[in-house]
């Protein structure tokens, strides 16, 4: 069956179109004063108008610094937070205002892996019952033997010893706990997995174990993954496409290879230049560092939000907000991207050229 136009909806799965479409999503947290009578005196504009698609089977990375809105975006897609404005479509259906049974049905399809494997597992429950909890919540596999078998299968899938289902979280190391979190997230065979900083609490040797597991599962099960992290090397390793956020906005989005090879937004360039590279022989060039701190999301700068820290900022940047769009470059690389996508889309009036990028001291690219 060929889906005629976008609003096909109706019964039956619809294998075409993106899995998730995020449209002008906004989330403001009110700032209040007063204890009894709370007056609203402003708002933290955590997410302030972001739009992107999540394609089926891809891993989309979201990077940015503390407070850029990446985790809030994830929580909005999970429907753990209600959006202030804008919409989220899941498989072509608007889920922005879903409630009750419909919301519960969506939660089956979207699962999350959390950052801290210590606080995200109930210390008083056995691993078996933690992993089986999604079945209990959704009333699945009602016969007891069934759940046990499924739990053991999941534990083997994520590389845990299935005989340990009767143990408690404290008997496991950080990396093993993160595997437990992954097993729980996979229990209901979700269509979308959101991983929010899944390895940043782990030691480097363990981090590689969990990253390999996630990449292997993603390939084997054809999962669609949103991977949120502040570590740009990890995101590059894991993701097909990457979105860079700054102060509640996406400043650049595109295929990983294009984005890391030729970042166009000065903020992306600055982020990449700041990453320390584990090779002392590559430390010849002086890096250009960003100065100052990220402005408060309660009163973001006018125009382009990055203009207060941007080395290329001009008059126009403080007055007119740039749109997220594809920018041609004087030196076009012929063969980037597969599906007609040349490079990245960037929200900048004066995107970087190759020469400027080289001057920033970016050491990426293979």
């Amino acid at each position, binding site marked *: 069956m060929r889906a005629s136009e976008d609003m096909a909806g109706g019964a039956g799965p619809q294998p075409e179109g993106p899995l998730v479409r995020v449209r002008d999503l906004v989330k403001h947290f009110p700032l209040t004063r007063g204890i009894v009578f709370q007056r609203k005196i402003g708002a933290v504009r955590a997410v302030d108008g972001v739009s992107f698609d999540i394609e089926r089977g891809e891993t989309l990375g979201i990077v940015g610094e503390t407070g850029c809105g990446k985790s809030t975006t994830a929580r909005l897609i999970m429907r753990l937070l209600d959006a202030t404005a804008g919409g989220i479509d899941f498989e072509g259906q608007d889920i922005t205002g879903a409630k009750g049974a419909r919301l519960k049905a969506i939660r089956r399809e979207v699962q999350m892996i959390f950052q801290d494997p210590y606080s995200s597992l109930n210390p008083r429950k056995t691993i078996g019952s933690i992993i089986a909890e999604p079945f209990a919540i959704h009333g699945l596999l009602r016969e007891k033997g069934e759940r046990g078998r499924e739990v053991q299968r999941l534990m083997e899938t994520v590389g845990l010893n299935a005989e340990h289902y009767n143990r408690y979280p404290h008997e496991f190391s950080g990396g093993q706990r993160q595997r437990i979190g992954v097993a729980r997230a996979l229990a209901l065979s979700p269509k979308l997995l959101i991983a929010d900083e899944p390895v940043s609490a782990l030691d480097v*040797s363990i981090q590689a174990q969990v990253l390999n597991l996630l990449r292997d599962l993603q390939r084997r099960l054809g999962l669609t993954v949103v991977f949120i992290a502040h570590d740009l090397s*990890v995101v590059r*390793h894991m993701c097909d496409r990457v979105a860079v956020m700054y102060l509640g906005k996406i400043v650049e989005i595109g295929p990983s290879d294009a984005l890391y090879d030729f970042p166009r937004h000065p903020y992306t360039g600055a982020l990449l230049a700041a990453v*320390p590279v584990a*090779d002392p022989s590559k430390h010849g060039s002086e890096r250009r560092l960003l100065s100052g701190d990220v402005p408060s999301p309660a009163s973001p700068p006018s125009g382009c939000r990055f203009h207060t820290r941007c080395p290329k900022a001009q008059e126009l940047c403080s007055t007119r907000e740039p749109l997220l769009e594809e920018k041609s470059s004087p030196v076009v690389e012929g063969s980037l991207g597969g599906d007609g996508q040349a490079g990245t889309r960037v929200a900048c009036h004066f995107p970087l050229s190759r020469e400027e990028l080289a001057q920033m001291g970016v050491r990426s690219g293979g």
Partner: protein
Amino acid sequence: MVFPSEDGVVRAVDGITYEVHGGRTLGIVGESGSGKTVSSLTTLGLTRREGARISGRIVFEGKDLLTLGEEELRAVRGNDIAMIFQDPLSSLHPLYRVGRQLVETVRAHGDVSKQQARQRAIELLGLVGIPDPARRVDSFPHEFSGGMRQRAMIAMALANEPKLLIADEPTTALDVTVQAQILALMERLQRELGMAIVMITHDLGVVAEMADEIAVMYAGRIVERASAARIFAAPEHPYTWGLLKSIPRLDGPREAELVPIPGTPPSLISPPSGCHFHPRCPYSQPEHERVDPALEPLAGEPGHQVACLLQADVRARLWRRLAAGGTPAQALAEVGQQGERA
């Protein structure tokens, strides 16, 4: 350095030796529980407590710090030797203004008036790049961003122009752009003040940027020590190989597979026998369970020391294969083919 705990005696640091010279940076790399923090806390006398057994010598400018009394040690600590901790929020007192905490540090070691100390505090905040220091000196820690708090911590550590600065994961809690600023600041101040830095971190990128010399710690011991250039170009210990192969690199091919180190770091209450790394080492031999390797210099490379029982030529061949993108199994197979040896 031995700690008693509820579960038994913890051998947190087990016979480590290193030295740092003025104007140089030593990076100490290792995972959680490898003893890298305890070794530096001990240097400052911060692990002296009921039941902790410390042996060895910590020589600072010819004096053995372990033999000093609490009073004498206090004169050294914060004056000649200063420390920066990982979490700047828990290291600053939340109820006192930043300036007051700086003034306290300045006056603890020098006989200066309050007015002079305040002037010095403003100067220090300016030195570490806090904008508008004369106003910011009266801020509370919560009014600072994470990067500014870490700058304030560095200002406090530098208050008395220490000769040795111990930085324990100083940038781990910070965003990359702020991390880059803080590292650049530490390098600048080192050039200006000529101090020695001991940089403790789990981040190989950070030590590659900062360190002249690197010590790799595993289970309370130094397993490899060499110049930064050699650690990254010609590492000798299988644990160091494991660390290098398990991080995704921004400057390598995107599809390169990560090779994790199997298993988990050992307990320091009952560390493995023989070579502490043998249970996780893909190349270990049966006798490595019994023999405990000493940290010894390489033939012809006195500055490069390694504690490994594998033969030097075997190690060289293994690393050549790994560096070319091979897995530990492939490297092992290749070395095995080139002649079995007893």
